[in-house]
């Protein structure tokens, strides 16, 4: 068994639906999407125009689903999509699209390019044109349980560290808990402060929660590479774990695409509704805040700004929550000029941060973020996605900017009123 071109083309045909058809037929070629894309604005190269990244998919739509296109194909007037072409498009569909959806916000006819890139990646993956790093991550996710190859013992080791540091018991596989907490590999390896923050916040709020030994990983490489069959396997693990532990709510961690995978794509992938709710950690924290369960003392004095993770804010709809929470603990919170649903992407979403050969382009695109930060004069950068965080840290280091980046959950936890 192997990936083949015909599998890829078949996948394109399978993926094209009414929205895709209406998007392609209503595109007016105005080019506004280019101006909204950081890969275009920072390189000036028109090949990074978002709608252009979809050209092979558009041709398949035209040849298979339109009258003139069918005629053209019959008469040999339109050239078929080839392996060479898909290979040429690989850097456009993967390396230079973070699926951030900023282009969809400016499209005057309402085309959702991200929706189509997600679908196009299905055909790219099925035809063997996915980047090798994403193939590796997907393989580790399915075979080991995490894209970074983390197994349960590593999680347990971190639990023990956090337990020692905070003196709070970290529950594992506790049936009937209200919340089941997931983590991204990035948080397990690089940012243990997230788990510590959760433990302290849950303790103050008086909520029961648990980790799950069979489903601790929230990320979903299947979504990034564009293979629904693989994405489904990974979502199913979380669903099985949550249903086994009979939890009310699964908390998606500070990770962008994990939220998209679990909250929006998940039920469609497994073909049924969940028996539990999925909330992003910021939604949970904001609920705690308005219920008076989140008590903080003191304020951050430094000027700080917020990087809106695209999948959580623009595509996830959590616009007010991060700002409500920030204003609880920060005196000098300043927003960037483009903020909320129009904020610029960190440049590493949608799997881009995992693709090694995309790094030079990603660092070039980071210039837009750099300019944004310089304009605010912020001394600290807060975000709510571990992937954004690592990409931002790398970008800041590359451009020799001394601005610390922190997670919002962790920032809230630092200001918790404790000892009650």
């Amino acid at each position, binding site marked *: *068994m*192997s*990936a*083949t071109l015909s*599998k890829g083309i*078949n*996948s394109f*045909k*399978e993926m*094209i*639906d009414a929205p895709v058809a209406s998007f392609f037929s209503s595109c007016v070629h105005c080019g506004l999407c280019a101006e909204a894309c950081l890969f275009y604005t920072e390189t000036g190269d028109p090949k990074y125009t978002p709608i252009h990244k979809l050209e092979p998919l558009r041709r398949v739509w035209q040849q*298979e*689903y339109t*009258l003139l296109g069918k005629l053209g194909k019959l008469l040999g007037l339109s050239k078929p999509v080839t392996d060479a072409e898909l290979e040429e498009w690989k850097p456009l569909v993967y390396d230079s699209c973070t699926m951030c959806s900023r282009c969809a916000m400016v499209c005057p006819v309402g085309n959702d390019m991200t929706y189509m890139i997600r679908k196009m990646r299905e055909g790219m*993956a*099925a035809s*063997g044109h*996915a980047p090798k790093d994403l*193939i590796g991550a*997907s*393989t580790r996710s*399915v*075979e080991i349980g995490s894209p970074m190859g983390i197994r349960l013992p590593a999680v347990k080791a971190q639990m023990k560290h956090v337990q020692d540091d905070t003196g709070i018991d970290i529950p594992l596989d506790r049936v009937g808990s209200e919340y089941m907490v997931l983590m991204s590999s990035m948080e397990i390896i690089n940012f243990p402060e997230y788990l510590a923050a959760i433990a302290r916040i849950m303790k103050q709020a008086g909520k029961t929660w648990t980790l799950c030994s069979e489903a601790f990983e929230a990320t979903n490489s299947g979504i990034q*590479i564009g*293979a*629904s*069959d*693989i994405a489904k396997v990974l979502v199913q693990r979380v669903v099985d774990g949550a249903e086994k532990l009979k939890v009310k709510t699964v908390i998606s961690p500070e990770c962008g695409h994990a939220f998209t995978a679990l909250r929006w794509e998940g039920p469609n992938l497994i073909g049924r509704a969940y028996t539990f709710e999925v909330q992003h950690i910021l939604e949970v924290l904001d609920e705690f805040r308005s219920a008076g369960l989140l008590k903080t003392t003191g304020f951050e004095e430094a000027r700080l700004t917020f990087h809106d993770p695209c999948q959580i804010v623009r595509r996830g709809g959590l616009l007010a929550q991060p700002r409500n929470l920030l204003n609880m603990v920060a005196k000098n919170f300043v927003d960037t000029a483009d903020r909320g649903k129009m904020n610029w992407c960190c440049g590493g979403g949608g799997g881009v941060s995992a693709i090694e050969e995309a790094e030079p382009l990603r660092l070039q695109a980071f210039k837009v973020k750099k300019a944004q930060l310089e304009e605010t004069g912020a001394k600290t950068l807060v975000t709510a996605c571990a992937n954004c965080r690592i990409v931002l840290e790398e970008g800041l280091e590359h451009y020799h900017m001394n601005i610390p980046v922190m997670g919002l959950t962790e920032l809230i936890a630092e200001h918790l009123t404790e000892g009650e």
Partner: protein
Amino acid sequence: MKKSRQPEVLPGTVGEGLKQRGVTRREFLKFCSALTVMLALPPAMASVMAEAISKARRQSVIWLSFQECTGCTESITRSHSPTLENLIFDLISLDYHHTLQAASGEAAEQARMQAMKDNEGNYLLIVDGSIPMGNPGYSCIAGISNHDMLVETAKGAAAIVAVGTCAAYGGIPKADPNPTGAVSVADIVKDKPIINVPGCPPIPVVMTGVLAHFLTFGGIPELDSLGRPKSFFGDTIHDRCYRRPFYDQGKFAETFDDEAARNGWCLFKLGCKGPVTYNACATTKWNDGTSFPIQSGHGCIGCSEPNFWDAGPLYQALSMPVSATGSLLGAAAIAGAAAGVAITWHNRSTKAAAKAAHEKVTVQELTREEK
């Protein structure tokens, strides 16, 4: 306006005449620059044009008026102040013009015959008004039918300018049911270059521009498919309308006295024909650049287009059907729906086949075997 013909007091060239009337060379050059811009000529042509016009012997012009209302003549002569345009007009040799000439009867016709004879092959013939093909008695001058006078005078003309929509396309006299059998100049004269300057009435500067082009280059400007100078009739009123941004935003006046109308929104829904009318009103404007119909709150009626009078109600929006019958539309809808169903059915089977052909993608199948 035009004085009687007295060669001994009139200057020999246009340039001398302008000087006599106190027009400085600088003013004249400015005027020529404006004309070159409007004629879409390269800027360097301004001085060439100035030279050519200044040196030109006074061009002999014969102006024939047929079934018309004199509006075209009014347009060019009744500018509210003496403009350079009508000064230039003064300085051509307008050898025959019913309305403006002092002579009458035999003497007038004599002047026409004399001009035709003296300038054979070189004079410019300007025509306003349409020509009745029914009873010749509908319109005749000095006992000569309009048709015969046109044919006779066109014979020795260098070129013909059909001024106004009546001369260019038949205009209002030709409107349904066309009782006089009115036709345009081009319907009768086939062997001479004809420049149509339509409009009801046409813009004065367009007439002057055409004349200036003729004097400078000795030929006619580039014309569109309806015989109009492209430089003035290249864009629609809509494309150049200052209310266009409201159209683009979907902001329309619904009545002539609503809030939207007072705010100056687009008059499309009130029947403005700007989108299908080619003319220069929106750029050159009227009355010394003061305004034009849309600016004063009324939609364009499309007066520079053929058959404008019969092109549907003036106050009905362009997008409303004027002729298609209900049954025709119904049949078209059914045919369209049937085609839609057929294509949908075919597309669904294409997609169903693709779904059936789906082979599960596992991590082992993300790479090519041959690699």
